[in-house]
């Protein structure tokens, strides 16, 4: 029981990070029907910017919660700038071109970002000592103490509050209404006076900001980043988005949590080595039974 609870805690804090990134995939897909393959690398950029700002902020004499908050905001702003630039350079010129063109351009962008960081920051891993320490013992079962670390609490708290803010943004504001209008019918939305280019840009900016939050959390939790982390995490988050139903915001979070939990519980009770096989098998199974994912709507082909 205690063991399962500990693994549940592990799985949720891992899944939250996947969920945050998955939201970026799902939002972009929702609005322009394209998989943004560079999104994992935007997350990586977010982690690197967090590290740089963290060094600057701590050198400036700040520490504790204020430092983390400042780093979070700064790296969100700068990563959002990257998100905006990527859209501007790689996707907007290809809008209206054939369907595969932006997809290939996205893969190209992903390679560009990876190599850019590799060249500018070096290929070696960047380690960082644990910054957020401590935690509480949730329960005890004989010798086994279920530990909930401050970092894990922080991840859950930050993720939930950031998601709450962005859900409010999408469902309750004029900007959100414009985004949903573009999602349903871009041409009609533009006929009705919505600046679709601007709306799409903002979607990329929001996605990048969320990925940056995930990057900061990742850096603080694991403390080892390199230019390649975006790939594996990006693939997992993309899987989460598909599992939850691509295009659906709550689906992305649900998918992220599920992937995190499946990985964790598989390595808890079966083989540690085959956890990815388990996660992807369940993805395949879900897609066979529910082709639109768990919370996705069936796509109506618009004529």
């Amino acid at each position, binding site marked *: 029981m205690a063991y399962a609870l500990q693994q549940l805690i592990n799985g949720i804090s*891992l899944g939250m990070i996947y969920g945050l990134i998955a939201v970026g995939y799902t939002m972009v897909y929702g609005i322009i029907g394209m998989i943004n393959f560079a999104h994992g690398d935007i997350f990586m950029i977010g982690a690197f910017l967090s590290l740089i700002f963290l060094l600057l902020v701590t050198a400036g004499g700040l520490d504790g919660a204020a430092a983390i908050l400042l780093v979070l905001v700064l790296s969100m702003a700068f990563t959002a700038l990257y998100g905006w630039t990527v859209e501007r350079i790689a996707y907007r010129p290809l809008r209206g071109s054939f369907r595969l063109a932006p997809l290939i351009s996205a893969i190209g962008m992903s390679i560009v970002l990876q190599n850019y960081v590799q060249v500018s920051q070096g290929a070696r891993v960047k380690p960082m000592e644990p910054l957020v320490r401590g935690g509480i013992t949730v329960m005890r079962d004989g010798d086994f103490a279920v*530990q909930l670390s401050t970092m894990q609490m922080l991840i859950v708290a930050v993720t939930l509050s950031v998601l709450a803010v962005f859900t409010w943004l999408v469902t309750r504001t004029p900007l959100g209404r414009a985004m949903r209008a573009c999602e349903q019918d871009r041409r009609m939305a533009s006929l009705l006076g919505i600046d679709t280019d601007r709306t799409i840009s903002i979607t990329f900016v929001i996605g990048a900001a969320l990925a940056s939050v995930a990057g900061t959390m990742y850096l603080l939790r694991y403390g080892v980043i390199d230019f390649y982390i975006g790939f594996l995490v990006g693939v997992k988050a993309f899987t989460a988005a598909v599992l939850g139903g691509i295009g659906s915001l709550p689906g992305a979070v649900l998918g992220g949590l599920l992937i995190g939990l499946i990985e964790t519980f598989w390595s808890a009770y079966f083989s540690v080595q085959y956890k990815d096989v388990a996660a992807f098998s369940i993805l395949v199974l879900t897609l066979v039974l529910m082709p639109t994912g768990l919370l996705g709507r069936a796509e109506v082909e618009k004529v």
Partner: protein
Amino acid sequence: MVQRRQILGGAAALTALGMTGPVRRAAAQSGGIRIASVGPMTGQYAAFGAQLRAGAEQAVADLNAAGGVLGQQLALEIGDDACDPRQAVSVANQMASRQVKLIAGHFCSGSSIPASKVYLEEGVLQISPASTNPKFTDEGGWNTFRTCGRDDQQGIVAGQYIARTYGGKKVAILHDNSAYGKGLADETKKSLNAAGMTEALYAAYTPGERDYSALVSRLKSAGVDVIYVGGYHTEAGLILRQAKEQGMPVTLIGGDALVTNEFWQITGAAGEGTLMTFSSDPRKRPSAAEVVGRFRARNVDPEGYVLYTYAAVQIWAEAAKKANSTDPRKVSDALKAGGPWTCVLGSVSFDRKGDVTVPDYVFYVWKNGAYAEV
């Protein structure tokens, strides 16, 4: 359309420039003897690649300053295998085609073993400063040597130490499925079992991941007191960090791959008390004093494998002088028959397989961000 064509033209011109670069460099150096150091210059283990590079560069500079080998200057090439077996083979082919006489590398056993087959076919001598998997020299031909020890020697030391110090405690053995990691873990397990102890858990993990919390919880529920990791410092550091975060009072024991300051940068204070097997510090040997001084003057700390790489080049040069030839086959015979060779590591001789005859593994411990002999 015009614009696009111009861009294409520009790209073609750039490619052409790039193509001529290496050719010109090769022509300029054709006078000397070419040797190479190959290791992970990029990627996760680039910290070790930098060690190999630093050692080889200093050795070549010192030899050249002393007049070169057999009257010829040495030219050093650096190859990058990123610790990837496939890339190692392609770099090996590339090096062989460039008529390299000596490879001071590779680093990872998983790269050294497949690359050594290429070097055997092409007749290139390979002295690894770091690949400790027994297969490297066991299966290697006349051309494989190493200046470091072997995992079976390392594993025996580790297994016996664990049995002696932690008798009655629960020990978990983990490895990353690489040639180095699994080899080391298996040798340690063998020697631990021979000493009458059975491990509580034996498992593999996937290298390159960051989240090992599920594995750590599993170790915690098994009540593990000691974790032996056959693997590299990034993963070992993360496992330890996450174990301490989950409140496990555990001791981590590893092999020679934890001998880098990056390990401590990952673990922070959680790394306190971590043990690892490594040769007694070559930096402190009297034979190394002068060379260490030269490294320090260049602001390089000759930690880890730096001096082993230096020694590989140095011993090769001595053997080439003795054989009066740089022909790899003749140098190989000289290496095995001649000796003991005086080098930065002290006095070294090789057995029939190409292993050093007196390996000396001792335990090191991490304390306050530095490691020292126990």
